[in-house]
């Protein structure tokens, strides 16, 4: 037996007798990464996850082809009334805008719904299949398991956003001309500047989903049924989005997590208006802290029966 094995064995088994069982032991980075890696694989190996990403990748393809057909004869996209998702009008002149239009089109429902499915499934899905016990038998500790679960959901947020952006960029660049970018304020910037703004927007959209991910994780700790956790998270998302669009309820809207989601468009102005973006990030941080700690309070004190 090698020296390293002995050390691990000592760390795991040779607790002095007579003392109460130690809590989660000192964090070793490799261990956390290992747990995170295995959670990440669990998420991304699922056929369900891949199907969600496939649907998200399909949205820009659909939008791009529709605009291409619509503007074949040099027509306007939205029938001259300026309706439809933001940035749609600009797509036929610059393929880069397909990325922004696709994000604007998927951000209200598609994107958060996929996050809701993955986050809702994270703990409750393990409980439903009876594997949560085995995860807890491993000496990782509940806090670390919860953190690894949350980190893997966040990784899915980034992956889902990048899927939309990459698919949109590929479709946009192959179907439409690409050149200097006209900002919302009418100023033109170079394509490089436009791509950098696009990357920032992708980052902002991914971080817009942080609050919902924490909410889904909390709901997931409440129940032992994966399906009901997913349904509750997605149902809550739809309810909140509807409340967010009823003008009479404007007093509570600034506190709803999707309220500043479309603030990412402010990056496309000159000068950039940061107030909405900062409000969005602050709101997401508050939701993540509140529901993350609620998930911790629930998960570390509940009895695991499945």
């Amino acid at each position, binding site marked *: 037996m090698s020296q390293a094995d002995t050390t691990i064995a000592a760390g795991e088994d040779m607790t002095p007798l007579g003392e109460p069982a*130690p809590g989660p032991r000192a964090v070793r980075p490799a261990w956390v990464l290992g747990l995170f890696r295995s959670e990440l694989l669990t998420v991304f190996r699922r056929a369900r996850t891949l199907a969600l990403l496939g649907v998200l990748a399909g949205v820009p393809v659909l939008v791009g082809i529709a605009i291409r057909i619509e503007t074949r004869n040099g027509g306007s996209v939205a029938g001259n009334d300026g*309706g439809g998702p933001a940035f749609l009008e600009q797509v036929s002149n610059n393929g880069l805008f397909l990325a922004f239009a696709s994000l604007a089109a998927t951000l209200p429902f598609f994107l958060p719904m996929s996050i809701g499915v993955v986050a809702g499934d994270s703990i409750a899905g393990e409980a439903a299949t009876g594997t949560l016990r085995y995860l807890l038998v491993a000496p990782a500790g509940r806090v670390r398991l919860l953190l690894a679960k949350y980190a893997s959901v966040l990784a899915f947020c980034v992956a889902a956003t990048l899927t939309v952006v990459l698919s949109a960029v590929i479709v946009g660049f192959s179907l439409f001309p690409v*050149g200097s970018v*006209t900002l919302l304020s009418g100023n033109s910037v170079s394509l490089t500047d436009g791509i950098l703004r696009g990357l920032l927007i992708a980052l902002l959209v991914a971080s817009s989903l942080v609050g919902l991910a924490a909410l889904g994780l909390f709901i997931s700790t409440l129940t032992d049924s994966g399906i009901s956790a997913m349904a509750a998270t997605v149902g809550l998302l739809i309810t909140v989005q509807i409340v967010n669009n009823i003008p009479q309820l404007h007093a509570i809207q600034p506190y709803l997590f999707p309220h500043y989601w479309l603030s990412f468009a402010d990056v496309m102005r000159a000068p950039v208006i940061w107030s909405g973006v900062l409000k969005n990030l602050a709101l997401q941080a508050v939701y993540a802290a509140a529901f993350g700690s609620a998930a911790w309070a629930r998960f570390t004190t509940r009895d695991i029966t499945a």
Partner: protein
Amino acid sequence: MALIQPAQPEQPQAGGPEEARRRRKALRYAVPAAVVGVTAATVGLVPALADSGDPSLPSLTAEQLLTKIAASDTQTVDGTVKITTDLGLPSALSGTTASGLFGGAAAPPSLGSPDASRAEPQRQLVQLLVGSHTLHVAADGPDRQKISIIQPAAEYSLIHDGTQLWAYDSSSNEAYHATLPQEQQHKAQPRQLPQDFPATPQAAAQQILKAADGKSAITTDGTARVAGHSAYVLEVRPEYAQDSTIGAFRIAVDAKTGVPLKFTLEPKGGGKAIVDIAYTRVSFAKPAASTFHFTPGKGVKVTEGKATQEPNGPRAGAGIGRPAFVGSGWDTVAVFSTKGALPSGTLPFDGKDGRPGKAGKPGAEAKNDPAQLGAILGGFGKQVTGSFGTGTLFHTRLVNVLLTQDGTVYAGAVDESALTSAASTAH
């Protein structure tokens, strides 16, 4: 089946392990509650703490303050303006639709004629009459200005650069272009684009101070902080105006530069300000030259506008006679003879003498069926009778409009009884 219970690192408390567990559980749930509590406290307290009261400034008389405004030579500005207009108009006219639900850009209300380009200034600026709007304002001398109406995921920009006037509407990707004649360019007031509605506190203050001359009591009203700047407050109260709906104008003037930073129009009856135009962020540094540079990108649909000496001249006046005026000062009532061509738009207020804009009738050129239109308008207004016969009276918090049987329109910033009596006298 054995339960897997959470690890219990703490020593069992007195009262048994069961109670200790419950206590620990409650303690853990206190964490999210504390997060929510701290957030609520921050949201509630920070604005209260930031509002550190009115600044103390050396006192100035109204005369000195007016001189300060007149002497102000600040030619450059870069800031954000918030305009809130509460005329008491039906909210259906405002652009608060549920389009945000599908990630859409807000479609502003279209009161103009449907054929006109979406980028046309008259069509777009009407939206400022209803609700709350954020504008980005930049100016560099009298020749170069830019005003952008910030909309969700869209923007409408008016760019004036020398003799070039561009307007760009990002939601429809359309542009409007006009060339201004040379002499008008010299006549143009600083920071004032050809439009009816004052979009900046400076423009509003300028119009009111011109109109107030000799007909108003002008006093100072303490100090205020606007957008981080210390400011004096000037109060303009209409005089010799029993019938006017206007209570007072309040103008906050930057103590350092003499630039008006905030403008409010309060109704006589009290309550919320009818018009509130204020900087929320302002800097007097020179904006970047690229701000005023506009070249329509590929695929932008450009509509060429006709440059006219009077920005809202012949087009807007079509179908409506030149107005006659009844009464004097703030109590003036404007009389239009429509001869069947009824105005379908809202009456823009240009601040001049407290009258509605002389010729700014957006949508006056729309060829609507008068009878049908009358029926629609009748739903908003109320029926009144007098020696003029019967008429429909439209009430807003600022302007009242009376539309009589024979197609004459009486409009003014006066109360309803003054308007009907003016119509009766005129008849």
